[in-house]
């Protein structure tokens, strides 16, 4: 029996379609993920292409450096300072109860800070502050048809809008991570001094960290700094539907950027573990 061309495939199946709906509910997010990932990779490739081929707009890059870096300094200092205080407070309390020996506190804290907390939490903060700003800015440019106007002027939006943000965020992410290590470590040292009476000179202990920790820290910062602007600009450029669309895009940007940070963190941490167990 030939299928009636007017029936949809769902009806042609004959069976009650709950199983198909189940499959559709599984497949739709998967397709969405694959599509988003492909779009992001395309945009990344295009950004790199225009970075090499296009004209360098120093003015735009400096504006973005100021926007991403200078205006995040206080925010990063507050959050990472509190993070250092919290971690030292918890760890010091535990160490005092279990061994009573606080000698290793500073050295191990610095190692953990470099490997994990400084780049990741800084990136989460940049993802909230900078990614929302980028998505909202580019999104309102899309809604008010300024991006179409750019295309009319033969200025590709990726070249004109994404490349300066990409360069600025990548540079500033590394700078801010180093800043975050300094702030967090000083806040930790002060907490150790005032809460546990641990001497600052004992706290500053560089014997635990090696080149591996520094390289892991900086490569994490580099990876996050490249991922966040791409995701934010992608969310901004894909806005549709007026001011509600801008709101949705900002939410998307911050969620996807934070998720990307966590996923990249997992990948780089496992890679680091594998490398470290190979070196001995």
């Amino acid at each position, binding site marked *: 029996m030939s299928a009636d061309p007017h029936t949809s495939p769902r009806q042609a199946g004959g069976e009650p379609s709950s199983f198909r709906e189940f499959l559709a509910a599984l497949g739709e997010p998967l397709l969405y993920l694959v599509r988003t990932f492909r779009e992001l990779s395309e945009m990344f490739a295009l950004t790199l292409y225009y970075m090499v081929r296009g004209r360098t707009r120093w003015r735009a890059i400096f504006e973005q450096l100021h926007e991403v870096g200078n205006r995040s300094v206080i*925010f990063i200092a507050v959050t990472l300072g509190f993070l250092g205080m919290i971690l030292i407070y918890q760890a010091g309390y535990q160490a005092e109860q279990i061994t009573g020996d606080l000698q290793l506190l500073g050295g191990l804290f610095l190692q953990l800070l470099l490997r*994990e907390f400084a780049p990741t939490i800084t990136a989460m903060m940049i993802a909230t*502050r900078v990614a929302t700003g980028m998505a909202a800015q580019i999104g309102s440019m899309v809604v008010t048809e300024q991006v179409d106007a750019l295309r009319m002027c033969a200025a590709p939006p990726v070249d004109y809008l994404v490349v300066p943000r990409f360069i600025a965020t990548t540079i500033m992410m590394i700078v801010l991570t180093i800043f975050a290590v300094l702030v967090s470590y000083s806040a930790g040292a002060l907490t150790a001094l005032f809460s546990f009476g641990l001497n600052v000179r004992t706290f500053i202990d560089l014997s635990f960290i090696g080149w591996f920790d520094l390289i892991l820290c900086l490569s994490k910062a580099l990876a996050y700094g490249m991922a966040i602007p791409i995701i934010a600009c992608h969310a901004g450029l894909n806005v549709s539907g007026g001011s509600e669309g*801008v709101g949705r895009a900002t939410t998307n940007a911050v969620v996807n950027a*934070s998720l990307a940070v966590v996923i990249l963190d997992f990948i780089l941490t*496992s890679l680091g*573990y594998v490398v470290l167990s190979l070196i001995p």
Partner: protein
Amino acid sequence: MHRITSTIQAPFRWLGHTAMSWSFNAGGLAILIFQVLRNLLPWRWQFDGPETWRNLYRVGVKSFPIVVVTAILVGAIMVIQSGLYIEQYGAYGLLGWGAGYSILREVGPILIGLMFSGRVGANNTAELGTMKVTDQVDALRALAIDPIAYLVMPRFIAMILMMFLLVVIGNFTALIGGAITSQVLLDVNMVLFFQSVITFVLLDDLLHGLIKAVAFGFAIAIISCHFGLSTSGGAVGVGRAVNASVVGSAIAIFVLDYAITFASL
């Protein structure tokens, strides 16, 4: 002459502008907290059932996947990080303690709180901000419907409740993620991992994390509603409000975390 005067004035103008916006936000947050708490009083209690259910669904169910993914990865990362130390000393029995303690107390609530503020808080600010910009909030007032009771209260209840539940779910998912990682990557038996969690991790650690979850939920709800309801200036204003809301939530999360940690030890 005029240019010189304005150059001299600029820093003062900036200072005054910053001070005004800080005090505007501080006062607005205080008033919103007061209004919400007043609406919780039994004789003023207006419970909008359907709206609350809708918000519970939107806040909780829609954030479920992202919280689960984050939690699994966080558990895995914490296990790898403490695995490096554990391997040095050969104390495999303490792996579950090391990962479980830090997940339940600090890392789980902070990261899930940051995700929650990004997903739910930002969404909430964008929604309320769009309503504000398109004069829908004023329309509610014109119909003699209190925006606090109709818009803020359901979101407030939903966010606190769902933040609590999501941290509970996130904690256990993170432990499962940690167990899988310890089996696959570190070659430490899963049973040993969970035994160590059960033996060494105290109820105190769990409760400590849950108190933080409720506090973070409260802060995110108040901050996101305040910045949403005080939006002005069209689509650009909505973007600015979302930005301010997530930044404020992140600062509130870290400050509250320090305060609770400090108070409980």
